[in-house]
């Protein structure tokens, strides 16, 4: 069953068609790759999917629900979470607090209870702590729970960003160039983390990536974007052998 269906999504910025007629269908549990040369419009697609940009045309459906013109928070609540190309953690907050920000919408007590430290406050905070620690353990970050996010090594910051996104309890996880700036060892560890997320949470993942080794190693299906348009779509192996795709990446002979 299709979890995400996108039909003819388009957006222009001042006459430049950044993304045109973008279509994609992602099934539940799939690991899908979105690739393409620099400036092809990959991150723009993510921003459209998460409501940061509103599309000029097209329809986005998540689990059958039309989320096309919803705002960012509602889309997050509907079940899409993401990470960023340039890591955007809350750097001055501790590791566990970053995750708790992601959890915040699922756990409730009133501001007055918070100010007075009364009522549900203690109970709910304890539940949040437990849930956050459970997540951190999955990502092997539990020993760093009180470290400031800014002081984590780069690879762990990436992991924490994924953990924070998972805290919002998404149906679909968007990863924007998770391997950017990583060395081969870190990339390998990241691939293991992504595999773990799939297994542990039964998660559907759409990821943007430049690292072909990572893409061919873990993605089942690929969509190639070039100049804002879908160049090729299908099983990873077929797509990577497509002459059009090779041309877009390597140029004409």
């Amino acid at each position, binding site marked *: 069953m299709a979890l995400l269906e996108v039909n003819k999504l388009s957006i222009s910025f001042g006459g430049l068609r950044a993304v045109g007629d973008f279509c994609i269908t992602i099934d539940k549990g799939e690991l899908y790759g979105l690739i393409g040369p620099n400036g092809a419009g990959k991150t723009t697609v993510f921003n459209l999917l*998460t409501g*940061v940009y509103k599309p000029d045309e097209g329809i986005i459906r998540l689990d059958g629900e039309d989320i096309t013109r919803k705002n*960012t*928070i509602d889309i*997050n*609540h509907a079940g899409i*979470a*993401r990470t*960023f190309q340039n890591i*955007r*953690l*809350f*750097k*001055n*907050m501790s590791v566990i*607090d970053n995750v*708790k*920000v*992601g*959890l*915040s*919408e699922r*756990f409730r*007590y009133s*501001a007055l209870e*918070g*100010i007075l*430290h009364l009522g549900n*406050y203690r109970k*709910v*905070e304890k539940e*949040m702590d437990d849930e956050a620690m459970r997540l951190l353990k999955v990502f092997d970050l539990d020993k760093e729970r009180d470290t400031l996010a800014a002081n984590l090594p780069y690879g762990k910051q990436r992991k924490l960003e994924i953990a*924070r*996104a998972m*805290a*919002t309890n998404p149906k679909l996880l968007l990863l924007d160039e998770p391997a950017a700036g990583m060395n081969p060892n870190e990339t390998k560890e990241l691939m293991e983390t992504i595999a773990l997320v799939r297994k542990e949470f039964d998660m559907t993942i759409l990821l943007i990536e430049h690292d072909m080794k990572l893409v061919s190693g873990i993605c089942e299906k690929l969509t190639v974007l070039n100049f804002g348009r879908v160049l090729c779509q299908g099983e990873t192996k077929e797509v990577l052998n497509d002459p059009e795709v090779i041309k877009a990446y390597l140029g004409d002979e």
Partner: protein
Amino acid sequence: MSFLTYFINGLSLGSIYAIIALGYTMVYGIAKMLNFAHGDFIMVGCYIIFSVSRALSGNSIVAIIISIVLCTILGITTEFVAYRPLRGAASPLAVLITAIGVSYLLENIALLIFGADVKSFTSVIKWEGLTFADGQLRIQGVTIVTIVVSIVILITLQLFINKTKQGQAMLAVAEDRGAATLMGINVNKTIMLTFAIGSALAAVAGALLCSAYPSLSPYTGAMPGIKAFVAAVLGGIGSIPGAMIGGLVLGIVEILSKTYISSQLSDAIVFGILVLVLLIKPTGILGKQVQVKV
């Protein structure tokens, strides 16, 4: 002994500045705007206490509670009507100028309702205070209450911000509004809560200010508002302990320079210190040094 008396008075005035500065600094840190109408919320709070306690023939506790509730509503309304539509405006100046507009609006509404004459405000704190060392050192009740209240507020706020999910949401919004939204944090609600707390603090500060200096006019809030802003900048704007330290330093310097140097010069000295601190440490006493990588 007299030095100690003046010092404690300075501490008390500083505590009031600190409570006002907390409101300034929270709103700046989280909503990234300077609410120049903040000082006038104090004035509104004082007029509410003044009117209600008159109507209820001197029941000041009820008057204070009503004032806090109404000021909170005023803060939320101002944010909703005047500031929220301008969030995301091309220039941050738009909302700054609107805040100045709101300030004049509130002052002139008060002028219209209550007139320009100075009303004498009956202190809401009836306690006489304590006397030490055979009457040589007398500390007024309002002084003690002010200092205690400000300490309680500081601790409560720190606990709220660092230990609750609403506080964490505030920190997240302060750091990266976009990322916070994408993690499901309702930015509008968070900023509204910030204004609610800031305005409630303004009402508390109003009650203390007018009890210590019992005269009330439509411009009562203006000068303390500006001085509290100075205190927030002095301590490092956006920092809650910074606002507290800035407020205390300002209050003590003001009272001591009024006593020992000249009462006309005291404001000049206060603002001179601001200039000096900013020349030496532009981010304020507790402000974070932001390093820009090239």
